[in-house]
């Protein structure tokens, strides 16, 4: 059995959430525990100007509930999605219980020389995230690439999320991902059980 790949698993689960599964929610209607987790990790991992929940920030929040997999559909996780603007960027923040994913259109990372593209990736990473990472970028930067700051350690074997950041370009958008690693346990918490049963019930109504 191949080594479990957390990033691939999370991406599969995000892609598995159909458009109709996302329900708009008001910030004050969020499950209190989910809101607390979300604020805690966002404050840890995003710079203050890139935080959701900022007073006056016009953000759209949506949630998608987890679902077991079937022979035809993959497992889905409990997910939260924020869409808001930071500077001129339309930012999409997708949160699972165990990760923080930022996506944004960044045409300049697909323009110019490799060095210019790499510089733009790092500029945007530092503009949005607190992680002190230098990514190891491939020789060619284009659609479909994936990179990491630390290939020597798997996300579930880190002691802290700060030990490894990941990113890539997918469907024309730049993405960055930080795990929400808790070192006390082996692996991660159950990403299908982030939402309370009550909140999940509201989403499924």
């Amino acid at each position, binding site marked *: *059995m*191949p*080594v*479990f790949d*957390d990033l691939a*698993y999370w991406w599969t*689960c995000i892609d598995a959430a159909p458009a109709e599964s996302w329900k708009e929610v008001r910030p004050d209607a969020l499950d*209190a*525990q989910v*809101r*607390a*987790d979300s*604020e*805690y990790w966002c*404050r*840890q991992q995003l710079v203050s100007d890139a935080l959701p929940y900022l007073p006056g920030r016009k953000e759209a929040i949506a949630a998608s509930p*987890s679902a*077991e*997999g*079937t*022979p035809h559909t993959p*497992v889905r*996780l409990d997910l939260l999605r924020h869409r808001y603007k930071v500077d001129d960027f339309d930012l999409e923040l997708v949160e699972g219980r165990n990760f923080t994913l930022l996506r944004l259109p960044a045409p300049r990372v697909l323009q110019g020389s490799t060095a210019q593209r790499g510089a733009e990736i790092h500029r945007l990473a530092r503009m949005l995230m607190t992680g002190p990472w230098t990514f190891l970028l491939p020789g060619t930067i284009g659609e479909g690439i994936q990179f990491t700051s630390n290939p020597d*350690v*798997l996300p*579930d*074997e*880190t*002691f*802290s999320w700060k*030990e490894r950041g990941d990113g890539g370009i997918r469907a024309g958008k730049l993405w960055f991902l930080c795990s929400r690693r*808790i*070192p*006390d*346990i*082996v*692996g*991660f*918490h*159950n*990403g*299908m*059980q982030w939402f309370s049963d009550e909140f999940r019930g509201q989403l499924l109504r």
Partner: protein
Amino acid sequence: MRVTLISGATTYEFLLGEPGGARGSSLQFSSTEELAVFLAPILRDPANHAGVASLRRALFTDSAASMVRPGAQDTDLARRYAQVFRRQGGLIHGMAPASAGGGVGAPPPVSIPPKPMPPLTPAVHDVPLTEFQILDVTFTSDHDKLKDYDRDWKNLGKRFSKPEWRAGANHPISHNQDKKVALKVKFKAGPPEGRTQYGVLTGKGPFYLAFDSGRRFISPGENTLSLECPKELPISIVKRREEIAWTLKLEKDGVLDGGSTGPHVIFCTYDAPRDDQAGKRQEDGVTSKRMEAAVELAAEIDTDVPHKLVDHLMGMFPRYSLSTSPKIPPQYGHPSYQNFEGGGWAMAQFREPGECQAIVRFVTGVIRQLGVPGESESVVVYAHPDAPQTAREDPLRPGSGLTAVAILVGESRWKAALTDQIVEEGAFYPPSHSRLDGGKSPGFNSYEACLKFTEGGRTIYYAGGAGQKLSAEHTLHCFKQLIWMERVAHPAKGDGIIVRKVLARYS
């Protein structure tokens, strides 16, 4: 002190601090100005150089003395000598005509006609002291570390200034619980022309704030006395608020009431707060808000046994928590309390379980604030697959425990874990502590995080949710098994764990 100086053909003896010394025959000056006029030629006369130096040393402090050496401003100089000489109750006797070069002998007093005084004004030495006012109180036995910041848990603010008590100001102190309180009290006696005499200053508070100066020389004007209470503060970690009532019992003029000072707030601690790590640890630093909280927490148990205090503090948090609490404002960063708001101190306010390292930081902050002896640290206890029955202990830091203990078996990656429930080889389990009907799934742990506290040669491990343990071995037995496990993706249940091998069973 006696010094002989000459003026023209006459020798004068100057007396300081010798009450009763032939006061009746001393020269009388109705004002400072009059005395200054008398002094000016004496101070100027080179023949008096050595004598004036002695007088200067007797009248002024070192720093003040440097400013009153003879110079061009003779009138001002003489006025300053006159002011201080009068304030200190100095006396001047006229002596025999001066011999050549000035004399230090004891010729018979000459008759100097006293200056006529207004008939209704008594001589200086006959005016009774009737006024007594405490000007300030400065504690000298306190720790002198307390800062004036109480807005939040940050280590900000300035040290409370001294004196602690004066008109319009009253600052708290922290003080050892079993030490005597010492202070300096500055008071004013009057009227200014009142007579110098012996007296006893007493401060009356509870027995640990009772002061008696003994027989002291009291002058009109400002007096400062250093006092120490003969009894130690009681052994108790507590915040005290006490007043001290002051009286001055004068040998000639009776008892004067100086009113009360305070209430003096005294945070009684084990020892001086430890704050030498304030540059590195958010929780180090002595502020009034932190001190108030620390003393309040310790007062709940009121013990002089450090282990009992730590046990009490740990009792506030029956378990460690890895989950964020919605009850705590996000700026505090619960459960890690990694913040710029004073770190773990907010746990005193919210009293919600947090991560082990946060609780350790909080407890360490409290015991260092109170000067409690002993050292606390965050450690992790676990066993390694190489020696499954042997407890290991590491500081809580990256790479410790089983976080990265893994082996490749074919294409599979097996990870070591400690379980909190019995698991079976080959069985599939959801991720740690998943909600199940009627309970939670087994936890697959990297370690048991502990607060390790050592004091007086005794060490105790405080394991989250598992209480006190006397050793790492005992702590390891919080777990059920050491296993090899593999993370897998179940097509319906998502990610989970297959137990590959049980390496040890503990309980």
